[in-house]
Structure formats: C-alpha cells, structure tokens
C-alpha cells in the first residue's frame, strides 16, 4: 500500500452548491501497513524490504530493546531501579524511527523511547543510570546533541521546533525528530509547535506513538478526532498513520518523511498505531482500568513476533539464529546492568555543579553546607 496524506489546497475541488456553500478544502488520512500479524504480507513491499540485512538488524534491535525492558522491570521489582516506563509492544517505533535517522539529526524522545535511544547509541548502562535516579544517565554517549527524555508530557514539542529552527538557520539538511505519545496530542504545546513548524517550514518530524492509553485514559477519551494524524493537517502539515507494529512500515514511513523534509518540503507527522502491552509505569496497575482480554488481543499484533514470522518465512531467520540472538542480548544486558549497579554514586556537590556554568557566589555556602551535612552523616 503506497500511501500518503493528501492536503488539498483551499479551493481545490471546489463544488458550488445551491445553498450558498462552497466546498473549500478536503483532506484525507491514509494508514500504511506492509506486514500484518503472523508475517502476512498485505501490500507490495517497499524496496528496503529486499535488504534482509537491514530487516534482521531491525529485528535484532527490537529484541535487544525488549530484553532491556524486561531487565529494567526486574531491577525495579527488586529495588534496584526507580519507577520505570515499559516500552513493551512498542519496540518497532523506536527502532524503526531511529534506524532511519542520521547521527547528525536530533532526537527528542519522550520517556518511553528507550528503543530509539538505544538505536541512537545511548548505552543500556546509561539508560539504567537515568531510570535508577542518576543524572549522568542523561549525559549519554549517544549523539551529544540529542535531548534527554522529556517527562512533562508534550512539553518537548517546542524544543524540537527550536532545534529544527537552528538547522534551518544554519542551512543544514538535518531533521529534528520528536517522539511523544497519544496523550501528548491533547496538549497546547503540541498545537503551538506544529503550527509554528508549519508557518516556518521547519525540518521537523513529529512521531506520535499512539499506544491507545495515556495512563488510564483511553484514546477515545483523549479526543473526538478520528485520527491524531489529522491534527497535523490542521497546521498545514502532511500527517499519515502507519502500523506502528510493522517495523518495515515504520522504517519506510520515517525514511520517506525524512527525505521529504531534507528536500525542503517542510515538516511531517507520523501517527504510529501501536498498543501499550504493559502498565504505564512500574507504579501503575493497568488492570484497574482495562480488560485483560483487550491486552491479550493486542499481543496478537506484537511487532517482534510479526517480523520474526516474516523473516522465518523468507528463510532469513532460524531457530538457531533466535537462540543465539537471545543469548547475545541477555549477555549484553546483564553486563551493562552489572556496570550500572557498580557505578559509584555522584558526590553530593554535583547537585550544584551544573546548575550554572559557573556557580554563583550566592550558592557557594549552600554547596559547602551540603558537603558538610554528608561528612557529618559519615562521621556519625
């Protein structure tokens, strides 16, 4: 299925009527899907699907993301990690989007985009440091210009527009890529940033990981709009849906959008349809507000088994490959978790040291007091 959103210019298809009304605008939203559950191919595959190395790389990265996710939850359950937001079931979005990006693009992730961050080069140890309550996790070794995760929902959309403005002012052909959830599209910042990006034709890609739930508020309670993609169209920006559990579709949609943006065609929005298989965070209990049957149903759409089924059907993936990948991922995650757990704590003074580039004199006394308080504790 070759699809794109189509925004008619005002006046296109104008149909004078006999009641004084003229049809001034018409919009369509399309949804892209290539590989359905059980690996069924439902549309002509894009060229990238011929690149089996790319597809297996996407697959491996999704499995690594899930292995990390399971370990993070296990660490939290055993008191060795803070509250953590699982990305279970949404791995194709982070992997697909970030795989289509270039290093010198900028990623602005929400708090559930571990997959995208891993793909960008943030290490598992760094992710665990952050979720374990250590700021150094956001001083990561991934692209140094990437943003840390955004916790206040949707407040990073304007940052993405600002980063995109910097690219446009420099005349680079990089793109700022912001990822947020469905709930974020109800926020004012979303509309404000999209609107300005449209006016200024900024190199901005907005990806909405629509996992159907904003904690306990369902997608239908979030907005009456038929799609979230159409909200971009309201700002004069093409918006399309993609099956967010079809890694090939996510990757292809992202790549096409990035190419269009790099070619100067202005911002794009992709609404990636997925489902949050886990709780909102480890502090949440989703059984309070949604039925187990609904969750079971969505396991059928799992992005990982879907791509594995496809690769297996193409004779590109064997049980032995699977076994060795799982071992490799577990080994890596365990080693990184050990490194995380062995990381010495920060000195108390660090809470002052990066507040400003140079600590103002007015804060020096408080810094000394904090150090003294710790020394006092240590001395009994």
């Amino acid at each position, binding site marked *: 299925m070759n699809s794109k959103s189509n925004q008619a210019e005002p006046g296109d298809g104008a149909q004078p009527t006999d009641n004084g009304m003229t049809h001034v605008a018409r919009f369509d939203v399309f949804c892209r899907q290539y590989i359905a559950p059980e690996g069924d191919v439902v549309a002509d595959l894009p060229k990238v699907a011929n690149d089996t190395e790319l597809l297996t790389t996407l697959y491996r990265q999704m499995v690594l993301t899930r292995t990390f996710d399971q370990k993070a939850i296990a660490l939290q359950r055993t008191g060795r990690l803070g509250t953590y937001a699982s990305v279970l079931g949404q791995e194709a979005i982070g992997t697909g989007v970030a795989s289509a990006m270039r290093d010198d693009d*900028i990623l*602005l992730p929400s708090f559930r985009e571990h997959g995208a961050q891993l793909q960008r080069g943030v290490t598992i140890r760094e992710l665990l440091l952050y979720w374990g309550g250590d*700021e*150094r996790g*956001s*001083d*990561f070794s991934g692209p*140094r*210009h990437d*943003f*840390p995760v955004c916790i*206040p929902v949707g*407040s*990073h*959309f*304007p*940052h*993405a*527009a*600002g*980063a*995109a*403005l*910097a*690219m446009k*002012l420099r005349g680079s052909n990089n793109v*700022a890529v912001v990822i947020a959830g469905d709930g974020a599209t109800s926020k*004012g*910042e979303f509309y*404000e*940033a999209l*609107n*300005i990006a449209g*006016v*200024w034709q900024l190199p901005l890609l907005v990806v909405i990981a629509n996992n159907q739930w904003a904690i306990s508020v369902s997608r239908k309670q979030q907005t009456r709009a038929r799609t979230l993609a159409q909200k971009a169209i309201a700002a004069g920006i093409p918006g399309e849906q993609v099956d967010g559990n079809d890694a090939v579709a996510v990757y292809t949609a992202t790549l096409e959008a990035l190419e269009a943006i790099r070619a100067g065609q202005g911002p794009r929005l992709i609404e990636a349809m997925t489902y949050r298989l886990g709780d909102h965070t480890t502090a949440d209990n989703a059984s309070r507000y949604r039925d187990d049957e609904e969750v079971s149903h969505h396991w059928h759409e799992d992005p990982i088994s879907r791509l594995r089924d496809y690769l297996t059907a193409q004779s590109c993936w064997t049980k032995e490959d699977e076994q060795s990948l799982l071992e490799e991922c577990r080994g890596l995650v365990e080693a990184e978790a050990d490194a995380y757990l062995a990381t010495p704590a920060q000195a108390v003074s*660090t*809470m002052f040291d*990066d*507040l*400003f*580039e*140079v600590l*103002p*004199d*007015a*804060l020096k006394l408080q810094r000394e007091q904090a150090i003294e308080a710790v020394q006092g504790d240590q001395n009994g």
Partner: protein
Amino acid sequence: MADIDLLGAVNLALARAMQDDETIIVLGEDVGANGGVFRATDGLQEKFGATRVLDTPLAECAIAGIAVGVATQGFRPIAEIQFAGFIYPVIDQMLNHASRLRNRTRGRLSCPMVLRAPYGGGVHAPEHHSESPEALFAHIPGLRVVIPSSPQRAYGLLLAAIRNPDPVVFLEPKRLYHAFKEAVSDDGKELALDQPVCLRQGRDITLVTWGASTTEVLSAADQLETEGISVEVIDIATLSPLNDDPICASVEKTGRCVVVHEAVRTGGFGAEIVARIADRSLNSLLAPVRRVTGYDTVIPLPRLEAHYMPGQKQVVKAVREVMELS
C-alpha cells in the same frame, strides 16, 4: 554619547549584541516589522534580517520552548513576551526545561537564552498588563532574574544577560521605559550580574528595592534627607541568585531597613530579603524591618491603580515609623 530612555537602552543593547554575535536571534510576537508593541526591537529586523528577528505566531509557550530548543544547538535566542501578564504559560518551559537542562544533562546541553518582558503597573494599561511576577521566577533554581532600573543599567545588564551562558529572565519596568533619559555609551560594555548596586549612600536606614520602585525610593530619600534622615538605597538588580552581602553589610551599618516592591506582599521577593537580614544581621538591627509593597490583591484596573502602587508617601511614612521604633 546620546541621552536615551530605558526603552532606547534596551534597543541599543539588543542591536549591539546582535552586531557582535551572529548566533543571537530575537523572536516574539510583533518584534519584526512592527518593532515590538513598545518598539524595543525597533529597526532590528531591518538591520539584521527576518532570519534573525523572527515574528512568531501568537503562542507564548512555544516562543519560550523554541528558544530552549534553538539555544541547545549553538544559538543565543532572545525571546520577548509582550507583557508579563502573558508570561504564565512560559513558566513551565522556564521551570521544567530552560533552568534544568544543564543540570539534568550534567553540562552536556545548556540553555543560553534571555526571556525579556515588560512588567509592572503604573502606565494605565488594560487588565492583565500590569503584573509584577518576578518572585515566581526567582523561586526557580538555575535561572537568573535580572531587573534594570535606569537606561545605563538596562544597557549593561541586558548585554550581560545575553552573553551569559545560562538562562536569564530579564524583566523591564515599563513604567520607566520613557520616565527619564540619561547618557548611555554604546561601548558594548556589560555590567556585572549578581551584583546589587548602591544608588545612594546614607547612615540611618537602608532601603532595598529594584525596578521601577527605585524612582519612588530615591525621591523618598530626598524628602527624608530634608528631615535629617540619611538614607542608603540599594537596587538589587539581580534578584536570583541573590547576592545578599551588600544588603547585609549596609544594614549592619545603618541598623534599619525597609524593603520596597510593587509586587504583592505575601511571598513577594521582599520576604526573602527580610529573611536574609534576619539570618545574617539580626543583632545589628535597631528596629523591625518593614516592607512597603503592593497589597495582597489583584492589581486594580487603571482607575484604582494609583492606590495600589507603593509610592513615595508610603516609603517616607514607613521610614519615619522605623526611625521612631529605635
């Protein structure tokens, strides 16, 4: 060297900074062709082009958020909020992001931006145009809050704010925009931030203030001098981080203090100054410390506004009372 008013000094500093540093951009509502509703950015778009002086859609939160984003990528944005009464949606961006980015990335990303806004009452403006929200910003760690009180200080402090590597909220007392002129040399020299300024030396009492209230405080000091009361006046200029050394040194010299500000009293920044004095200089005090401030009410519409603003009379009265108590 021309005599210019505070608004002219803001404009001069913006032009000078943009001339000296190509990474500086200005963005906000009506800042381009219109030169800002007060004309603070007058002529800048003509001089530096529409890619450096950007008219934004009407979206305060995004103006600040875009400034955050572009600041992380090597630019130095100066964002204008048209009136401080419209600045509240921006607090989220300044509090959750601009002020925290350096700290939360342990120095990897920083946010060298200036958020400018005209603030304060006394110009018979419509509803929501006269607020003094400085204490809201002074409560945010990682943020500087700077307020000028004269054309020279507006020029020097704004240059310093723009060149500072961290985010600065620069509140311009709009009552002083055209209040008086003085000679300002366009020499590109900045004034030190975090440094209260002694506007007048005296022996008997210390008056601490900032922004437009310096006008009433200085005129009260003149009046009190004729009554034989020698008044020291300190303009704190940078509210946060507050360098209280000069304040406490002055109070330890005079033994008396009145703090004057236009903002509402409860939780106003005057409370912080009084607390610092209580903490460091209590034993030097000869009398209780008083505050002369706006009331804990909504600032009225223009017909009652004059009754809200703390004026010279109230300052003189408070000083006399403090003198009598000692």
